[in-house]
């Protein structure tokens, strides 16, 4: 039996744990409901793992992977699955997540979350790999929608339907990255609200929020780039309000990876997300009474 998607992570706002904040978090124990770490950053030994051991004693922890390459046409890297399993066994996280993307071909790791063609063949590959990883870890995965900067001509399935079908076929949950929906919707002319509407609410086990950049190309057109390098954009907060209205209070993470700021900035963003969660919790409670 696979463990439930929400595990021990509370329906509150958490922050992404990055190396520059290890010591501050371990020593000052800031008031934040939970933390999320990148699985790939804890595959060796030494002080990073000891910090995470310490931090894990004080906070619910989620592990977010970037390297499984669930969308590869070829087989998963068994050694990497084994590394992920070791990290999961050591830290016993409340949630484990990965991406709807690929990064490995011919044994080369391309170090990015690359876009998939939205085809039946890719859907089958992703589902097979999600099944394999869920079996290897003996637990449910959450799969995150990506930010994308291109679409393939031969795609036949809308991304929101593709993701929903992965969840339906494999029993995995969905990590709804609201910033990614906004970025991809802007880049491809999609309707972000329709994307949210299409996701199965019961499968959404976590939400991600982050900042993005706007890049102007040579011809003056713009693309939004998911760089996790700034505060959450106002339009993304607005979309987040729509997301929690649909999905209810869901564990929500503030991510920041480029030019990581002082811990206080992340805590401030988390506090803002918390106000949305408390609001929707209040509304749900009122609706229950009525």
């Amino acid at each position, binding site marked *: 039996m696979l463990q439930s998607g929400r595990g021990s992570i509370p329906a509150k706002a958490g922050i992404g744990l990055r190396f520059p904040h290890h010591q501050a978090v371990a020593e000052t124990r800031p008031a934040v409901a939970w933390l999320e770490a990148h699985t790939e950053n804890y595959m060796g030994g*030494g002080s990073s793992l000891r910090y995470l051991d310490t931090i894990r004693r004080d906070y619910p922890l989620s592990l977010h992977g970037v390297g499984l*390459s669930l969308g590869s046409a070829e087989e998963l890297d068994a050694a990497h699955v084994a590394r992920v399993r070791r990290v999961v066994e050591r830290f016993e996280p409340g949630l484990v997540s990965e991406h709807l993307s690929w990064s490995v071909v011919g044994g*080369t790791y*391309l170090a990015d979350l690359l876009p998939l063609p939205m085809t039946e063949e890719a859907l089958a590959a992703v589902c097979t790999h999600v099944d394999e990883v869920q079996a290897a870890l003996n637990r449910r995965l959450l799969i995150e929608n990506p930010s994308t*900067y291109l679409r393939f001509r031969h795609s036949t399935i809308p991304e929101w339907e593709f993701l929903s079908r992965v969840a339906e076929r494999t029993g995995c949950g969905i990590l709804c990255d609201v910033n990614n929906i906004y970025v991809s919707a802007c880049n491809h002319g999609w309707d972000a609200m329709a994307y949210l509407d299409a996701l199965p609410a019961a499968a959404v086990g976590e939400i991600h929020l982050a900042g993005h950049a706007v890049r102007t190309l040579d011809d003056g057109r713009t693309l939004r780039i998911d760089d996790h390098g700034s505060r959450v954009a106002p339009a993304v907060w607005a979309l987040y309000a729509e997301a929690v209205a649909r999905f209810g209070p869901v564990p929500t993470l503030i991510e920041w990876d480029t030019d990581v700021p002082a811990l206080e900035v992340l805590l401030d963003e988390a506090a803002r997300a918390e106000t949305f969660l408390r609001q929707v919790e209040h509304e749900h409670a009122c609706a229950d009474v009525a």
Partner: protein
Amino acid sequence: MSTPAPTLLELQRAVHRSLCAHDDATAAACIVNDGIDPAARLGIYRNTFASALTNALRLSYPAVKRLVGVECFEGVAHLFIEAEPPRSANLDDYGAGFAEFLTRFEAVAVLAYLPDVARLEWTVNRALHAPDVASLDLGRLYTLKEEEQARVCFTPHPSAGLLRLDHPADAIWRAVLARDDAALAAIDPATGPVRLLVHRAEEGIEVSRLDEAAWCFTEALFAGRPLHFVLEDALCADPQLLLAEHLAAERLVAFEFADG
């Protein structure tokens, strides 16, 4: 438009060629062209790919970066990334071949000691990320019979590494990371070779110099040669003391018995 849709594997191979070899033709033909050049869209991914790996190299080779400057480092890093992209999603393991790559790179040939600094930084990086292992049961070791002790073959801690370098890379590395220009200026790169022991201690990474005899003794120990051979062959003054030091510093983490 009339070309058949690629399989997932064909498409992924095409994107690989685009990112690593700047060969966009096949991948670009598969991308919706709605006014933004498909090659520019692929370029966004290539940038992320290159910057993520450049950053991984920057973290592993901070002294090399300072010695050659940011611009030169990024240039070399990009060429290295395209020539030797990672074979694993565990980026702690990425960059093993960088020192050898530097020896073939003419623009930095004037810094003859640079590959040695890179070799040291890679060994330090390996030590930083090596797995944690249980300590050796010293009680068990010391209660072995003499005949058993003679046949002991040790396993070193996974963080332990030995280097024999032509240049005083340890002194250069320390001065560069400390931004101590006076110390750096005082180093004669022609003094060498140096023999180094790298290992992760409780307090952090330790890099120490050994003399030739101590280095050879330690190398034989770390290679798992039976203890009596290692002691017999030892040329250092007090091999038992050095063995005790390695044990006390937890540089040896397990043992088994040689046959016979």
